[in-house]
């Protein structure tokens, strides 16, 4: 990824994405990002043309893929008042991008950050992992494992409905541009895990493996020097990577506060988009899967000018405040077909 447009310093933060520790209450849900109906209709036509020939499981890509299961409607979290509702929009609007995967009111940052990580380095893998069946249903590929660690692709067939809340609209993963691939991927993952409640928290390697079908490694960087962490990050931007912070650290009672003043969220996963060195300063470009939430000035303005969740972290801060790096593999993808773009 080209980092030239990102130059925010990361020393002087004053905005914290967290609220008072005393202010703990059940989370509500964010508003939906709606799309204009007319535009959506056009987008749907374009998407239908594109999607008709983009689905993966070409035999060479997923030789062991099993037949799609019957249409699955993953169980919604109980006691939340959520229901399923239709949301219009195309499956894709051009090649999938990290910015199109925005976490909603479910604690599945580990999955959304992983989706964004794969979209960043291998958008064709994202396109090939989901298909529009043309009958209002979609097939989502989710890799599971056998007990010896062998990957097994499974297809989960879901309809186009997503979790909605009264008066709010779509509540879980969504795209600000109206594309639907991220929310339907999430739905397929929820189907594979017997319901949305079962993906309310998790670990990035599991998600990376479910998306790519390749082993994802963990590296615990808590005791590493910045130079060592820099070495771990080699390959960022070419293989999917997710880094995370801890909820708390027993050896540092002020850990969460320290994160907060740097625009970081405790117990949270971030997509690693790349690394760069400018004037001798090594930095890591990360993305908050919220699609917002980053270092800001006293007035709450993002230091890099755009509160899109994408920001640089100096390697010294990264090694101090992040605790792990999950590194995935590249998915097997089928060669692009002549004349098929998107």
């Amino acid at each position, binding site marked *: 990824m080209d980092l030239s447009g990102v130059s925010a310093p990361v020393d002087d933060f004053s905005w914290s994405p*967290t609220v008072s520790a005393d*202010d703990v209450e059940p989370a509500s849900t964010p508003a939906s990002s709606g799309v204009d109906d007319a535009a959506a209709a056009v987008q749907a036509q374009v998407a239908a043309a594109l999607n008709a020939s983009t689905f993966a499981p070409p035999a060479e890509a997923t030789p062991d893929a099993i037949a799609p299961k019957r249409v699955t409607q993953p169980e919604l979290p109980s006691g939340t008042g959520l229901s399923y509702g239709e949301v219009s929009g195309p499956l894709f609007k051009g090649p999938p991008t990290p910015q199109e995967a925005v976490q909603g009111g479910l*604690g599945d940052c*580990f999955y959304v950050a992983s989706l964004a990580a794969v979209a960043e380095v291998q958008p064709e893998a994202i396109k090939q992992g989901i298909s529009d069946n043309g009958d209002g249903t979609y097939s989502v590929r989710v890799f599971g494992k056998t*007990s010896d660690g062998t990957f097994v692709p499974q297809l989960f067939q879901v309809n186009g409905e997503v979790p909605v809340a009264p008066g709010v609209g779509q509540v879980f993963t969504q795209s600000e541009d109206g594309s639907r691939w991220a929310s339907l991927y999430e739905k397929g993952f929820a189907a594979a895990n017997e319901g949305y409640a079962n993906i309310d*928290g998790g670990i990035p390697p599991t998600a990376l493996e479910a998306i790519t079908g390749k082993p994802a490694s*963990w590296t615990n960087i808590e005791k590493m020097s910045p130079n060592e962490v820099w070495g771990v990050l080699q390959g960022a931007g070419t293989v999917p990577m997710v880094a995370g912070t801890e909820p708390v650290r027993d050896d540092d009672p002020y850990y969460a506060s320290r994160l907060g003043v740097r625009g970081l969220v405790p*117990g949270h996963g971030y997509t690693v988009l790349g690394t760069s060195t400018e004037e001798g300063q090594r930095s890591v470009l990360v993305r908050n899967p919220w699609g917002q939430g980053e270092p*800001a000035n006293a007035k709450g303005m993002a230091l890099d000018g755009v509160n899109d969740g994408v920001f640089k972290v100096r390697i010294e801060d990264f090694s101090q405040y992040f605790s792990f790096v999950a590194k995935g593999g590249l998915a097997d993808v089928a060669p692009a077909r002549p004349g098929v773009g998107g």
Partner: protein
Amino acid sequence: MGLPNLALASLRDLGPFTITLQGEATEAFLSQRPCVYFEWSYGVKAPGASDWTVSWSGYRTSSPFTALTPRGPLPINLNEVRLFLSPAVEREWSRADKDKGEAPKVVAQRLAAHTPVSAAEHCLEAGREYFAVVSAEDFNLPPAAGSRVAKKARQWVLWISDQPFSAEGKPQVAPTPTYQHWNH
């Protein structure tokens, strides 16, 4: 999203308690023990290190099980627990083992690049007594539209350990690899 789990939350006042587990037992991959839950992982240690520097998940079961608590049976999904268990079995393979067929295939692939590679399996057994305590896990969710303030959420989870918790309620055993860096 701070999903309510009334059954777990209702056990908060018990403090530490003991449970036994019920569920369909599966033969664990490395130890061959019958387990209602097992996970195995493998990894590589830096010279002199006690913990893995880099690790991979081999497999984990996904079936829910039931905890028999002092107040009755409690169905448990795997994202509602945090496990602090001693390994049921540990193995290690060196590069010399690569072609012997003894190491799992996914481990053997790592032996080409790393040596040695070790594996650990953690298991929950039906009928065995475990130590448990209900714990609050607080986390953050995206701000509502028009706000810059993150939402706070809380999930009640059941800590399960094969060792008693300390007087302060802290686990005396490290979390299993699956539960080491739980994120929301």
